[in-house]
């Protein structure tokens, strides 16, 4: 049901963890629905220098978090904000229909973390 790419990111998620001195942090989702995603950003000169995530959820949620962090690491905030769940799904070689909603979470978490950074830096 999951693509090899999904299973790879699920089994060996990239960028898992926390950034102690993150300057943009956000958590989306809620445990009631079974998925929570937390993103940590380290932004320097408008560029995402480092990114880490933690996710409570299914393989769809974990793999989308993982690949999304890979996709925006090193990108400018503007570029990162343009990341859509569609692009994430494509990068994973697809997701089962009933898992599309998990991919939305990654997009939301990144946007929320960028917002948090901007708020903290009065942008």
């Amino acid at each position: 049901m999951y693509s090899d790419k999904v299973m790879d990111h699920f089994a060996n998620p990239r960028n898992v963890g926390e950034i102690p001195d993150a300057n943009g942090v956000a958590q989306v989702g809620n445990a009631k629905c079974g998925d929570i995603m937390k993103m940590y950003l380290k932004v320097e000169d408008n560029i995402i220098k480092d990114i880490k995530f933690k996710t409570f959820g299914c393989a769809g949620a974990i793999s989308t978090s993982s690949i999304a962090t890979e996709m925006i690491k090193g990108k400018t905030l503007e570029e990162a904000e343009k990341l859509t769940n569609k692009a994430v799904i494509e990068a994973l070689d697809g997701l089962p229909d009933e898992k599309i909603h998990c991919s939305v979470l990654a997009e939301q978490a990144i946007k929320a973390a960028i917002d948090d950074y901007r708020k903290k830096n009065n942008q």
Partner: protein
Amino acid sequence: MERRYFDYAATTPVDPGVLEEMLPYFKDSFGNPSSIYSYGREAKKAVEEARSKIANLIGADSKEIFFTAGGSEADNWAIKGIAMKLKDKGNHIITSKIEHHAVLHVCQYLEKHGFEVTYLPVDENGFINLKDLKNSITNKTILISIMFANNEIGTIQPVKEIGEIAKEHNIYFHTDAVQALGNTKINVNDMNIDLMSMSSHKIYGPKGVGALYIKKGVKIDPFIHGGAQERRKRAGTENVPGIVGFGKAAEIASNSLEEHIKRTVKLRDKLITGILENIDYVRLNGDPIKRLPGNVNVSIEFVEGEALLLNLDMIGVSASSGSACTSGSLDPSHVLLAIGLPHEIAHGSLRLTIGRYTKEKDIDYVIEELPKIVDKLRAMSPLYEKVKGGDK
């Protein structure tokens, strides 16, 4: 990679002895049992022998066994068949909140068509309350349908007592015994059961066959109308190899019931203890004593069930979960919610069910490996952080 199957409640492999008995009925004795020539008579005889083996397993008479395509059809038939037959007498059905969907969705469907249904709540171990049951009976009640044993948490209901209450009030009692069959002693007469659903593939028989026990004298509409098979109660050319296989599976189950229960309970309890001792923030769901011999169901906090299952699958262990993420629906298992688990804990549920071919070393393996998987998943869980930080 060695495969370790921990999902006997979902389905079981066919016992080799069962398959062997089935084989002749595909190509050689393939006749239609309704025919009068010798090919047909052979098939007919085989079907009748299977019927008596199933009757024997549950203390019924052969004539009270009607073959179906499985447990779901048996549940649908029992409930819709009684509802349609007795609708002029009453339109009220009593069931529980933790029934299998094959009962619940039928009841919900009937609600759309003029029936009223009481869904009895259960306590934290999954038992219905007999007083609740009595209080919910009205003069419109035509059927009580309470499952024998639950497929998720393994809790075994006080069936005999429910049967007595039904009998006192002259109401038909149906029980879904799909999980109980072959796993606990059943006697339909002692237990005052009027209708009982069974399924072959849960007792090492083939998929696609089951049966409904209908006590002599019970009035019920057919569900599949057509030919005169199954004494005009269930139409369709008989699935002869399937029925023969189900019969053999029932025979094996009858002959080894006590031994099977003893052996399985021992393994189960070892697994439960191993998990509870080696993992923090974990709870056992279902009653510790009155539970199916092969059922282990735990909630592991801060992790999500599907992620657990896939990690187990990667090391060859097949299991099951009540997480919403595995069902494709938005809510976690209705059974886990009914016993009072909060959504987030229900999501972290894991069901490991064991059976005839489970070895002690498989149990040891899970006890050893599961904690590692849980650690790995908790390490990436934003929920677990807080606990570790002490601010839970």
